[in-house]
């Protein structure tokens, strides 16, 4: 046509692109076309603007950038002709989305087009507005759209109705304006208008409670009538699909009735009959019919209770579930999941079928079915259901195993009736899918095992067997290695044999073999290897005959490139070699891990449930909740002084299991004061000398009972060894010296440091407080203060409470006082130990304010004072 026009026709461009053999060729063609289009845009070419935009749309669909064409859309929309506008609006919808600012520029053109005399142009504008309008545009153009709801041509009315949906979704405030016009649309005969009107009505009800109330009152009966007419209508070829007149309208009406009926008994009542009719009369041999039934079931489930209808609905779902068509089964599972909240019993009846669906070849169905099964589990059916699921675990797809394992573990944990069952099932899961088991899950398993003392032997043997057959599953290896380390003696001696198990003969070297293989496995990660090393250390004492061999294995890691392994290797080697006398005490079986604490820990990571864990945590006066198992944590982890209540259960158990690796240790050390060895020794001592249950208070006890204190500490320095299972670098190096004797002889804490004179910190007419000071070696900043109160009056003090405050550069740690009543006339004392850390050590002296409250003859007495006479250099 135009001899001067450059560029190709749209058809030719598409052909050229399709002819490209490689992506590079295609890019070259597209680049050339884009260059030509840009040139045309720069020249403001009028004749081929719409062709260029069409090309750009195609290029856009291929995924190339086309932003430079956005303004062209606006120009085309602004031009007067229909063809230009048509392509312009199409480009607008494809190339732009509601976030682009260019869109604002088009508002005016759209407004003009909405008022155009040509109804097709009005239609184009409505369509574009409905698909991409932003909140601002919605506000600006809502009045136009509202007016078009009454347009003479039904095709414009329906477009305006859908456009209104977009508008009220963007700006729910505008909903009120649409209520009245929509009520008129619901009375229309034209199906397109009716469908869109019903949809708009549904959306209005969702965003506006007033609208819901209005339509419920005014329109429910009319809608029921419309649906009845539709259901009973004669054959209408224009709307017929598989023998049903307009299933789309059916579905939309049912959806709206659902919204109206939910939560309103009267409205629900008025639609019962028609729902029953739809549920019974609809043909279910074609997809369209099933779609209606499906919608009808959902409506029945959602509206107010009508027993008969619900039975009908559940029966339909049962039929769906046994359908051969996968689509139908999928939607049945979907719907049963919602029905379970309405009628769990009825859903339970289909359990067997649902369980079959978990094993379906179709991933979508499997996923839905698994979710449903998870909801179906209760105490009474947990055993058979778990068995099915665990059995299926063996043959399931790799990509489904993750989901399935998580669900199975969660079911087992939640509903396990007894420990042996729990352990059995978990072992099965570990054997089948140990790689998919999350850390928390096997940590929890270890806690349970450690608590089930009668099952130790059984468990360790079962794990041994499992590990012999498969060593591929990481978490199985970890649990097994841990158990063998702890209960290796039971494995060899066959102690605690249950009736159900076959006896096996395991020699000591077999047990060592299997742990060794765990270390040697290339696939084992650092945690597993570290755990295996600890297990070996433990076995070295359990099996003296293998001690030599174990030492050799441990020594092999002396040169490991992984610092953690190297360190463990060196430390363990020196324990085995140089500290025979204390080794057995060091590697004693781990104290029972407190289930409640662990559970509380897990729960306490949840802010909302902190209160539930308070039953297990002992509240100390310093305001730190210290779970009773905390000393155990100290036993294994130097750095875990005051366990932060917010740390997750995983950390906690990792500490217990000795798998805490350096980065994790450091990350939790934010509010910790550096600790020196003595404290740990005390903690260790407290483990050894007092029952584990009440040792949360043992540390202060030992400290405060002044006269015993020193000899105990003195005798303890050699006991420092167990703490070497830890890696906190600051303390570990300190300990290394102690242990290896490389440095000077270990300083005895009791003799260490200058002695400080005792002071009378506070004295009033009725009360005296004296402070004794001691320092820990290697940690000059921290002062241990032991205070003792003496009653100078002749009356008994009760409800004695001591409080202390320090300035910011000090950190104060108060231990519980030895009592809360103080006998008269110096016949007894209350001791109170404090630990003060001076961050400005050497620059500022200690200073403290105190407040003492007590009752004399039922009267409250409050004494306050400031202590300024601390010895310098504290």
């Amino acid at each position: 046509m135009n001899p001067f026009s450059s560029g190709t026709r749209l058809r030719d461009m598409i052909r050229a692109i399709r002819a490209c053999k490689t992506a590079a060729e295609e890019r070259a063609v597209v680049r050339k076309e884009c260059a030509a289009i840009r040139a045309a845009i720069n020249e403001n070419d009028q004749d081929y603007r719409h062709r260029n935009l069409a090309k750009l749309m195609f290029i856009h669909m291929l995924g190339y950038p086309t932003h430079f064409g956005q303004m062209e859309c606006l120009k085309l929309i602004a031009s007067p002709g229909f063809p230009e506008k048509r392509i312009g609006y199409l480009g607008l919808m494809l190339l732009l989305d509601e976030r682009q600012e260019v869109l604002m520029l088009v508002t005016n053109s759209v407004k003009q087009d909405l008022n155009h005399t040509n109804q097709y142009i009005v239609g184009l504008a409505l369509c574009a507005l409905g698909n991409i309008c932003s909140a601002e545009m919605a506000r600006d153009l809502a009045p136009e759209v509202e007016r078009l709801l009454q347009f003479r041509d039904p095709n414009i009315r329906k477009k305006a109705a859908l456009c209104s949906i977009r508008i009220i979704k963007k700006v729910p405030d505008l909903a009120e304006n649409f209520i009245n016009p929509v009520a008129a649309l619901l009375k229309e005969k034209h199906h397109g208008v009716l469908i869109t009107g019903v949809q708009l009505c549904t959306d209005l009800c969702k965003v506006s409670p007033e609208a819901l109330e209005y339509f419920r009152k005014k329109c429910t009966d009319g809608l029921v009538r419309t649906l009845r007419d539709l259901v009973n209508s004669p054959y209408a070829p224009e709307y017929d699909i598989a023998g049903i007149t307009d299933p789309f309208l059916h579905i939309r009406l049912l959806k709206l009735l659902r919204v109206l009926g939910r939560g309103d008994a009267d409205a629900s009542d008025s639609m019962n009959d028609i729902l029953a009719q739809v549920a019974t009369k609809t043909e279910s041999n074609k997809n369209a019919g099933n779609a209606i039934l499906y919608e009808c079931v959902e409506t029945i489930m959602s509206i107010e209770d009508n027993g008969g209808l619900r039975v009908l609905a559940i029966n339909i779902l049962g039929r769906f579930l046994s359908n051969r068509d996968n689509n139908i089964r999928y939607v049945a599972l979907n719907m049963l999941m919602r029905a379970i909240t309405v009628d769990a019993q009825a859903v339970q009846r289909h359990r067997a079928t649902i369980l079959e669906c978990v094993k379906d070849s179709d991933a979508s169905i499997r996923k839905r079915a698994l979710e449903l099964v998870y909801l179906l589990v209760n105490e009474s059916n947990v055993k058979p259901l778990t068995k099915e699921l665990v059995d299926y675990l063996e043959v399931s797809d790799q990509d489904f195993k993750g989901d399935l394992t998580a669900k199975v573990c969660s079911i087992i944990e939640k509903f396990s009736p007894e420990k042996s069952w729990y352990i059995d099932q978990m072992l099965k899961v570990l054997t089948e899918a140990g790689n998919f088991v999350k850390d928390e899950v096997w940590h929890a398993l270890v806690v349970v095992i450690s608590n089930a003392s009668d099952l130790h032997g059984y468990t360790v043997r079962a794990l041994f067997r499992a590990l012999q057959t498969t060593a591929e599953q990481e978490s199985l290896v970890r649990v097994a290695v841990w158990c063998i380390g702890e209960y290796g003696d039971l494995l060899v001696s066959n102690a605690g044999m249950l009736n159900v198990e076959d006896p096996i003969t395991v020699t000591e070297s077999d047990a060592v073999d299997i742990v060794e293989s765990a270390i040697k496995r290339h696939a084992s990660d650092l945690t597993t290897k570290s755990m295996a090393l600890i297990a070996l250390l433990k076995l070295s004492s359990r099996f003296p005959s293998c001690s030599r061999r174990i030492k050799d294995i441990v020594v092999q890691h002396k040169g490991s490139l992984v610092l953690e392994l190297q360190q463990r290797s060196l430390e363990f080697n020196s324990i085995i070699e140089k500290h025979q006398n204390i080794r057995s005490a060091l590697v004693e079986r781990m104290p029972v891990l407190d289930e409640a604490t662990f559970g509380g820990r897990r729960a306490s990571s949840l802010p909302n449930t902190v209160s539930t864990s308070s039953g297990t945590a002992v509240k100390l006066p310093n305001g730190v909740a210290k779970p009773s198992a905390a000393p155990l944590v100290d036993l294994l982890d130097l750095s875990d002084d005051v366990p932060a209540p917010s740390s997750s259960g995983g950390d906690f158990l990792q500490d217990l299991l000795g798998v805490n690796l350096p980065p994790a240790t450091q990350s939790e050390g934010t509010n910790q004061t550096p600790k020196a060895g003595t404290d740990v020794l005390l903690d260790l001592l407290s483990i050894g000398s007092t029952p584990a249950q009440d040792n949360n208070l043992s540390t202060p006890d030992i400290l405060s009972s002044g006269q015993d204190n020193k000899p105990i500490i003195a005798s303890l320095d050699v006991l420092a060894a167990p703490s070497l299972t830890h890696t906190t670098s600051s303390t570990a190096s300190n300990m290394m010296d102690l242990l290896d004797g490389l440095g000077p002889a270990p300083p005895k804490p009791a003799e260490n440091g200058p002695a400080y004179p005792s002071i009378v910190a506070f004295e009033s007419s009725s009360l005296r407080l004296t402070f004794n000071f001691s320092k820990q070696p290697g940690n000059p900043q921290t002062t241990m203060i032991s205070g003792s109160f003496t009653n100078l009056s002749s009356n008994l003090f009760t409800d004695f409470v001591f409080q202390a405050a320090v300035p910011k550069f000090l950190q104060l740690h108060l231990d519980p006082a030895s009592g809360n009543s103080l006998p008269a006339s110096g016949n007894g004392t209350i001791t109170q130990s404090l630990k003060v850390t001076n961050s400005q050590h050497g620059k500022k002296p200690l200073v403290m304010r105190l407040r003492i409250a007590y009752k004399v003859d039922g009267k409250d007495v409050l004494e306050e004072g400031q202590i300024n006479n601390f010895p310098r250099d504290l």
Partner: protein
Amino acid sequence: QKQYTRPNQLEEQVAFSFERLFLFFSEQNRDLRSDYSSPWTPVARTRNRRCLQSASIVNHEPHILIILRHYDLNGVILLVTSQIHFVCLISRQGKVRLTKWYSTYTQKERSKAIRELSGVILSRGPKLCNFVDWKGYKVVYKRYASLYFCMCIDDEDNELEALEVIHHFVEILDRYFGSVCELDLIFNFHKAYYILDELLIAGELQESSKKTVAKLISAQDSLVEVAKEEASSISNIIAQATK
């Protein structure tokens, strides 16, 4: 940025309870969180709209989440959205033949979605069901010859109906092109878009009658023809005049 401006107490409650729910999710045992991550998306989305009340979140049972996905105790529907989010046609080779987005997605999200979906859908066997769970939505697809017609709908929507809508679209295309094939849709992609625009607006069905759609399209096509003829006749006149 708030999408609505009616600050009332209910909304604050909603926001509060969602926070709690979210905390619950993120702090609760992790397996649960990952399992339910998919329903999360719609729930989180709903936060910006307005809907439920706080009461139903107090319970920490996992199944409450399922209830939450549907309605709260007062029967207010939780998921306000219920629409088609996008439609796309993907060839068996994974080439995109048509895409139409009814919800807001960035260009990046769009290509990511298409890439992911074509990976999932094209690899599914012929006998499997036509639904795929995808990020808390459902994608309903159906294969016609070498083309996959996909439609992304909300979790609450009727999948069977979506299949029916797809079929409806295909029948209209078929009627318009006369036994439609992939090439028709490649070379006349704009026509396919015009037809789709007569069928769906704002992710909702607009017309259940194939005849009406065909009538509207042909009316608009003839408008274009008339305009073209006029243009060419004018250019002819000019051409003749300048000779």
